[in-house]
């Protein structure tokens, strides 16, 4: 009979029930939108912050530096192993040398341009990029170089490339006697055995610059680079070609790594990398990583606060609507009591109705909220917001509970008053 009463009641009071459901939908959808966004926000923000560039640099460790050893391409491939190293968004290996263009000393950079495009998206290139996959000898120059030497796109640029002198022999005695040096400690072991203090790159640039033989090589200028940074003064060729020309087959000076920091702090990824690639060390670029951690925390906190406030606000609003609905039915309650219904049974009818309103409103509101979250996600971050199963039961339970609690007070009051008073109209 409970069912029949509730159904008939809904049928008769269709309009008012719909209005109540609508109120619940509004509240539930707002909360659903915000919670869905908030759950995904950290990941989205972390990815956006990668636009500031690499936050980690991979270098040869101190023992290798003393021996003039660099990082090999095979070792770099380990960065792709997502099973062992998490959260790498992208990386770009670099090999440097100093060469001459028309008697001017210039820094020559060998890089992989597809990777550079991904982790350094701020490079402004006029013309086109070097194509990593083609065999053509192409070059990009910084805008300062182009301006000073009067180069235009399509010109042929002659680079005089220094042949590296092989230092391996002079260091072999040292390797047995050097110990593992702590990253920021100062050790005398490596230095004292050799008259020339170990020349670490890039500090060795200054002393080695004008020595050695230079060989000319011609390149086609395909583009100019503007960044406001050091790139404006550098020239860029393909990594494979650089490795060949500098005599450093399959090696690089460093790898710039762009690491996502929403799941794990950057220190964890850095130590994973050092563990997987022995003989290397990582440097965390505090300029990028400090600011990034700070901003991520604040944006998330902002979202959480806004969500909580909205929860409270819409919760109270929904409650007030539901309470008003029931308050106006005090006469009904009085009537039912007068004809003999028990308090408990009367309350059950109203709670059932409120529960139905809460459930239906909650489901519809949740779906609407998910749609709105997708709209926000797509417009702001260009990706969809992930689906979180947990949000459904949480939303539904809260809306039903809210509806029940807001009915409890008026129903509770109404059943306890003498029916005569409520029937009278007060």
């Amino acid at each position, binding site marked *: 009979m409970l069912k029949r009463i509730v159904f008939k009641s809904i049928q008769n009071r269709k309009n008012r029930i719909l209005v109540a459901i609508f*109120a619940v939908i509004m509240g539930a959808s707002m909360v659903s939108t915000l919670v869905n966004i908030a759950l995904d926000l950290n990941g989205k923000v972390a990815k956006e912050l990668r636009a500031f560039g690499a936050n980690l640099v991979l270098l040869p460790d101190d023992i290798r530096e003393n021996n003039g050893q660099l990082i090999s391409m095979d070792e770099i491939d380990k960065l792709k192993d997502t099973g062992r190293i998490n959260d790498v968004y992208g990386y770009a290996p670099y090999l440097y040398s100093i060469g001459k263009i028309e008697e001017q000393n210039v820094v020559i950079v060998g890089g992989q341009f597809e990777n550079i495009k991904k982790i350094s998206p701020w490079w402004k290139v006029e013309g086109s990029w070097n194509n990593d996959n083609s065999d053509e000898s192409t070059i990009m120059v910084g805008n300062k170089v182009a301006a000073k030497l009067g180069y235009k796109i399509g010109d042929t640029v002659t680079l005089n490339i220094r042949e590296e002198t092989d230092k391996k022999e002079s260091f072999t005695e040292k390797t047995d006697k050097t110990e593992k040096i702590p990253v920021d400690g100062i050790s005398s072991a490596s230095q004292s055995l050799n008259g020339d203090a170990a020349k670490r790159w890039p500090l060795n640039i200054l002393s080695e610059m004008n020595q050695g033989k230079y060989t000319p090589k011609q390149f086609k200028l395909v583009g100019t680079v503007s960044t406001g940074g050091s790139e404006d003064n*550098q020239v860029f060729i393909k990594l494979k070609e650089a490795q060949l020309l500098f005599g450093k087959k399959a090696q690089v000076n460093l790898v710039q790594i762009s690491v996502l920091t929403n799941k794990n702090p950057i220190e964890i990824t850095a130590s994973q990398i050092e563990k997987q690639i022995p003989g290397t060390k990582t440097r965390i670029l505090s300029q990028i990583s400090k600011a990034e951690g700070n901003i991520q925390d604040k944006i998330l906190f902002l979202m959480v606060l806004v969500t909580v406030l909205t929860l409270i606000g819409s919760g109270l609003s929904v409650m007030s609507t539901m309470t008003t609905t029931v308050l106006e039915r005090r006469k009904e309650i009085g009537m039912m009591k007068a004809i003999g219904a028990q308090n408990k049974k009367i309350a059950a009818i109203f709670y059932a109705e409120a529960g139905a309103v809460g459930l239906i409103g909650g489901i519809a509101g949740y779906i609407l909220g998910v749609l709105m979250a997708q709209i926000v996600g797509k417009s702001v971050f260009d990706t969809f917001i992930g689906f979180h199963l947990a949000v459904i039961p949480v939303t539904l339970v809260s809306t039903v509970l809210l509806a029940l609690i807001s009915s409890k007070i008026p129903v509770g009051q109404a059943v306890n008053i003498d029916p005569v008073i409520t029937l009278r109209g007060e």
Partner: protein
Amino acid sequence: MYGRILRKSIKVRRKRIILAVIAVIMGASLISALTGVYLNIEEKVGKELSSYGANIIVKPKGDDISLEIGGVNYSSNQQQNFLKEDELYKIKKIFWKYNILGFSPYLSTVVKVGPENESVVLTGTWFDKEIDIPDEAFKSARVGVKTIAPWWTVDGEWINDEENKPEAILGSAVAKQLENRAGDTVSINYNGKMIELKVVGILHTGGEEENQIFTNLATVQGLTGLQGKVSEIKVSAAITPEDDFAKKDITQMTKEEYIRWYCTPYISSIALQIEEVITDSDALPIEQIASAQGNFIKKIKLMMMLITLVAVAASALGVMTAMTTSILERRKEIGVIKAIGARTNQIIALFMAEVAAIGVIGGIIGYGLGIGLAQVIGNAVFNSTVAINVIVLPVTIIIAIGITMIGSMIPIRNALKIDPVIVLRGE
């Protein structure tokens, strides 16, 4: 008589009126708080992003190609062109002076260091000082490396700009190479000229600064004979993201457009204004920082706007339903008043007066509460107050009153259309 009916109505239905007012307060406070935060978000996020450091670099016009890696200049040949140190204060006098968060000058040269005569880059700069800015309200400004590179961590002590002692901060890579620690003295040799600097701190940043030795600007100027000269200035400015208008070619703009562009803190207009005060300079955005800052601010602004719109719409609709509900339940009343002969517009006036009162009171209280909430958010998240934007008050009140009245109008109109007999019967 209207007054009496209104007052009696409120007295009898006190509880329900309060409930309606609560609904309006909740909606209005959410609208007021979120709109207040949205209007401030660009400034707040911009300030957070300034911790990424300098976003503009100022160099002398037409200077030579330098050997630079990671921002460190390894060129040993002398530059031809320099900027003037005594013009630096003018950077805090440009149109966008309040957006200049800090700047620092640099003069670098390659020197030989230590007993092994190793080549190292020596850079002179300001660390943390107040300079006088004549004829300005703020009288002085804080400048130096600390204002444009807040991530620097120095093991030991910073250099005191005022004392001008012969001191140095070594980048950690250089310290390792030279085997120096804080307390040691390094001997610097520049083309035969020798000076001794006491190492007061070791710099850790993870970046290429670790390959330099830092000292007072005046020390390097004295050493190289370049008194009063600097080779570059790094500036940190609070910028507004570039939009389509900013990307227009300034030579193609009309006078009004140019004024509008000049008076918006785009990075390009701030850079131009710096070029105007520093003789023979080129001021360029440091794209790595500037473009990422702009894009990020844009995204967060858009996100806040959409969220605020969603919340405003949902709150407004929620308030509307609350009002609708409370009117719907009074259909019998409407029927009775109609039955005893009241005219339609009198009935509407009576109910609307009540509703409008609810809207106004709820709106004002909600607005005030919302301002408080906005401050709570501002303080908790950004450690600063949210500026009270005057426009939020009329917007909130209008929405509150408008929504309450619309929400009530519809059921009242419906109730009035029906034959009082049916309403009185109870359907």
